[in-house]
């Protein structure tokens, strides 16, 4: 079996794209988790 596209380490331009892509999905997910934690604490304080 042949190896796929080049080496396992990404070129610098790709690293920026990877960071952007993860931030793109990470920010709304972090917002959702923050809201979840706020609500979940009601179990212990409510």
């Amino acid at each position: 079996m042949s190896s796929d596209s080049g080496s396992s380490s990404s070129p610098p331009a790709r690293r920026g794209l990877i960071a952007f892509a993860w931030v793109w999905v990470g920010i709304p997910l972090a917002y959702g988790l923050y809201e979840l934690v706020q609500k979940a604490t009601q179990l212990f304080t409510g």
Partner: protein
Amino acid sequence: MSPPVAPAGWSRWLVPPAALSVHLSIGQAYAWSVFKPPLESALGLSGTQSALPFQLGIVMLGLSAAFGGTLVERNGPRWAMTVALICFSSGFLLAALGAAVEQYWLIVFGYGFVGGIGLGIGYISPVSTLIKWFPDRPGMATGIAIMGFGGGALIASPWSAQMLESFGSDSSGIALAFLVHGLTYAVFMLLGVLLVRVPRTGKPAGADGPAVFEGPQVSARSAVRTPQFWCLWVVLCMNVTAGIGILEKAAPMITDFFATTSTPVSVSAAAGFVALLSAANMAGRIGWSSTSDLIGRKNIYRVYLGVGALMYALIALAGDSSKPLFILCALVILSFYGGGFATVPAYLKDLFGTYQVGAIHGRLLTAWSTAGVLGPLIVNWIADRQEAAGKDGASLYTLSMFIMIGLLVVGFVANELVRPVHPRHHVPAPAATEKEAADVQRQR
């Protein structure tokens, strides 16, 4: 549309965020309940009527995943993500029009029918591609994506509620909220469409272990004729039924359970319990699915089903004697529920190969639709009957718990019956390789 094959230097770590952008969006479906009260007051609907768009959406999810899986395999993930984007977003836009002109049927058709197709195609769109990029860690890869489906509701629920608060809960406010949802999700999902790439045949850069297309390969048409497919169907159906049994009635269940004790559960504490269950559901998707890469798929389902049954038995036997024990057991059950969803694509890949794993996964999701009806039906029907018989507190749910244990045991047995697929079902090696090669050629 042809999805491009990854160019040289393309990182496989770009594929999970592409998948997440789709799953975090379509996961909004589980936050539909936010729109129910405003719709009911604005359009004069009953609770049953206002649930219709969601119910039709889930039915369409199952149908489009089952019948669209082969198309997804044939046309690739970019085509599938584009279809999901168009259907899911235009579903919201049609619903916005329906709310603006106060035509509820248009909301049902738009969000439920059109949007539901987006849910099904979107759900299966990245599965096959992720498995091909991560042949060494398929459980983790699909776990990330399917965790996103759980995360979508966590994002949409507070976001939609805030939007309705700002725009107002009348029909024009709801229409504006639907419009903003449709446009925002279109932009958000676009990242997935632009980023997703299929690997060239062979081993993707950075992957350990066997290459992508090694091992037995089975077509979707043959897979549904194998006992392994139907054993897994039973496994998934039983595991999901057991999870939904708690998830669907979580708030009233914890309130009823401890209603007759010295420390009853308040409404806000019950809401906190529901939120904690969602967290366990999400954590299970990524955590247990990644664990399956280490201990094997059959073993992890032994844990989901066997320990799950034990947790139900503990809840039933402990009754209202210990709140922490009840909460802990429920959290473990919900983590297994999420884990069961997230691990099944990798289990399918182990049994049937990567050849048409997306299409096979789509067909298997009919087990989810069945469980979606079965789980709530069992718990609600029994709780109503017990209440009519004059019971209260934990005893309202004791019988349901024992039924759930029975279902999990059935699932456990089905998992034990899973064996490697007989070679007569395998696609001849050259045919599978030629198909993959043709896909790559067409996609260039």
